[in-house]
C-alpha cells in the first residue's frame, strides 16, 4: 500500500491546514522533509509535538507555516531557547495548546485504541488545565466512596504523522527500532509519511529481530529516501548533531531580521541545513 517517492513528493502530500504530528528531537525528526515543506510554502499547519519540539517546530513557526501548536515544550536543548516559538507566543500570533508530555502520549494512545479519551493522573492544580477547556475533570467512576478527581484527555487524531527512520523495505515496512512512539503516532494518525536513511533489501518481517521493531506498510502512505534526513539534528545510533549549524540556528532564531536571512538562504538552497 506504501508508495516509494521523493522528499518533495512527501512534502506535497501534506495539505495546508493539516494536523501534523512530529516526533521529539533525537528520535527521528524529518528535517529534510521539513525543509521541503517550507520550500513548498505550506500554510496553517496544526502541529502536534510528540511530545516536545525543537528546531523543526521553531523553523516551521518562523517560516509562517503554523497556525496552531500543541506541545509540552519547545526548546533548542543546550543551544538555548527556541526563538521563533518564543517570539510567536509572546506576540500572540500562534494558537498554542499547552500540554504536558504524558497527556500527548495519552491522547495519541486514545486515538490508537479508538477510545474517545484516556484518563491521566496528576495535572490537577496545574494552570495548564485552565487553558485546556477540551480537557475535563471527572470523578473517578470506579470510586464510589470518595472524591477522586481525574483529568481526561481527548483522543488526538492527527491527519498525518511525519518522521524519519533508519530504513524501510521494498514493500514500505519501516524499521522504527526502539522508537515505539512512532508506532503510536502511525496508529493514531490517518496517514503516515516517512523518510529513511536507506532502503532495506527484502522484507523486514522476514527477520525476527528486525520484525520486532517494524511498523507495517499497512499504516504507511509513502516513504522517501533521505540520507542524513535528521540533520542538523542527530539521529540516535546513526549520527550526532551538527553543533555549528544548531548554534547558528539558535542565534538566528532570536531576531526577526537574522531569521529572515537564515530562512532566505535556507529556502533557496535546498541542500543547505
Amino acid at each position, binding site marked *: 500500500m506504501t508508495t516509494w517517492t521523493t522528499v518533495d513528493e512527501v512534502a506535497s502530500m501534506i495539505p495546508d491546514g493539516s494536523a501534523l504530528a512530529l516526533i*521529539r528531537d*533525537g*528520535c527521528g525528526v524529518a528535517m529534510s522533509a521539513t525543509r521541503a515543506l517550507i520550500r513548498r510554502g505550506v500554510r496553517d499547519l496544526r502541529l502536534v509535538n*510528540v*511530545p*516536545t519540539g525543537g528546531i523543526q517546530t521553531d523553523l516551521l513557526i518562523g517560516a509562517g507555516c503554523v497556525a496552531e501548536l500543541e*506541545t*509540552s*515544550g*519547545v*526548546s533548542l*536543548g*543546550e543551544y538555548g*531557547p*527556541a526563538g521563533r*516559538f*518564543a517570539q510567536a*507566543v*509572546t506576540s*500572540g500570533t500562534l494558537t*498554542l495548546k*499547552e*500540554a*504536558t*508530555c*504524558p*497527556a500527548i*502520549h495519552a491522547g495519541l*494512545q486514545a486515538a490508537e485504541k479508538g477510545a474517545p479519551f484516556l484518563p*491521566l*493522573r*496528576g*495535572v*490537577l*492544580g*496545574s*494552570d*495548564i488545565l485552565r*487553558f485546556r477547556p477540551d480537557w475535563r475533570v471527572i470523578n473517578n467512576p470506579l470510586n464510589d466512596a*470518595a*472524591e*477522586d*478527581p*481525574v483529568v481526561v484527555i481527548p483522543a488526538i487524531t492527527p491527519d498525518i504523522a511525519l518522521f524519519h527512520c533508519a530504513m524501510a523495505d521494498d514493500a514500505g515496512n519501516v524499521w522504527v527500532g*526502539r*522508537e*515505539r*512512539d*512512532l*508506532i*503510536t503516532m502511525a496508529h493514531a494518525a490517518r496517514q503516515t509519511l516517512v523518510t529513511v536513511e536507506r532502503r532495506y533489501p527484502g522484507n523486514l518481517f522476514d527477520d525476527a529481530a528486525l520484525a520486532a521493531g517494524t511498523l507495517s506498510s499497512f499504516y504507511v502512505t509513502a516513504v522517501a529516501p533521505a540520507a542524513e534526513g535528521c540533520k542538523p539534528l542527530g539521529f*540516535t*545510533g546513526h549520527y550526532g548533531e551538527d553543533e555549528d549549524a544548531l548554534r547558528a540556528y539558535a542565534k538566528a532564531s532570536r531576531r526577526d531580521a537574522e531569521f529572515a536571512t537564515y530562512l532566505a538562504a535556507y529556502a533557496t538552497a535546498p541542500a543547505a541545513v
Partner: protein
Amino acid sequence: MTNFNRHELLIATMARLLIGTRHIAVGVSSPIPASAALLTRHQSNGATRVSILGDPSNTFWSDGGKELFDCAAQGRIDAFFFSGGQIDGAGNINLVGIGDYPRSTVRFGGSYGSAFLYYMIPRIILFRPDHDPRVLVPKVDFISAAGTSPPGVWRRGGPYALVTGKAVFHFDSNEGRFTLQSVHPGETLPDIQATTGFAFDVAPDLSETESPDATTLSLIRGSVGREIAATYPKFARESLGIAA
C-alpha cells in the same frame, strides 16, 4: 580540609538527598543532577539504579518516550529533578513563562512532563544553581505543576527539597512550605533571606551544608566523572577535571 568547587559541593549535597532511593531518573541537560545520581549509585554499591535520559548506556527504555511516564506512574521511579523558570514558596513551579498567560512577556520552553511527574515521583529535587529572587518568587505567574494538592486528590509525589547555589531547603508537603536546612560554605542567612523571593521557615538546627569528604570527592573526580563524561564531556572536563 579538602578543597572542592561549587559543582562538587552540589553533587555531594544532592547525593545525600538521594540516599535510599531504588531508582533515580534524570532528565536531559542536567549534568549536576546526573552526577549526583551516579554518585548515589556508587555510594549504594549499585543498589540504586540510575536512568539518564539521552544516555543510551544508562537507560533501559524500549517502549518509546512514554515509558518514562508509565514507569513513574507504576511507582518505579523514586527520585527526579526539576528546575523552574520560577519556583514559589508553596512549591509550585513555572516552566511556561513570565507575565499574564497566555500573553507572557517572556516565554520558557513549556511544562514538559512536570504536570505529571511532580505528582508521581516521591522525591523531586528542585535544582537552580542561581539563587535569584526573580526565580524564587512569592507566587509563580503560571503553575506548570502544583507543589501540593488538596485532600482527595490522588498524589504519590512532589517536591522534596530545593537545592540552589547558596542553600538547601526541605519541603514540607503538609505545610506547603520550604524550610531552610543548610547554607553552603561562605553563604549567610541574611543573604539567603535577601535573595529568596518567598517566605520560608528556618530549621532550628540550621547548619552549614556538609562539605564532601575525601572519599566522596575522589569518587566524584574518578568514577562519576568518567561516567558523566560520556554524556557531558565539557562539564566533566571543566567542572570535575576529567581529561577528555
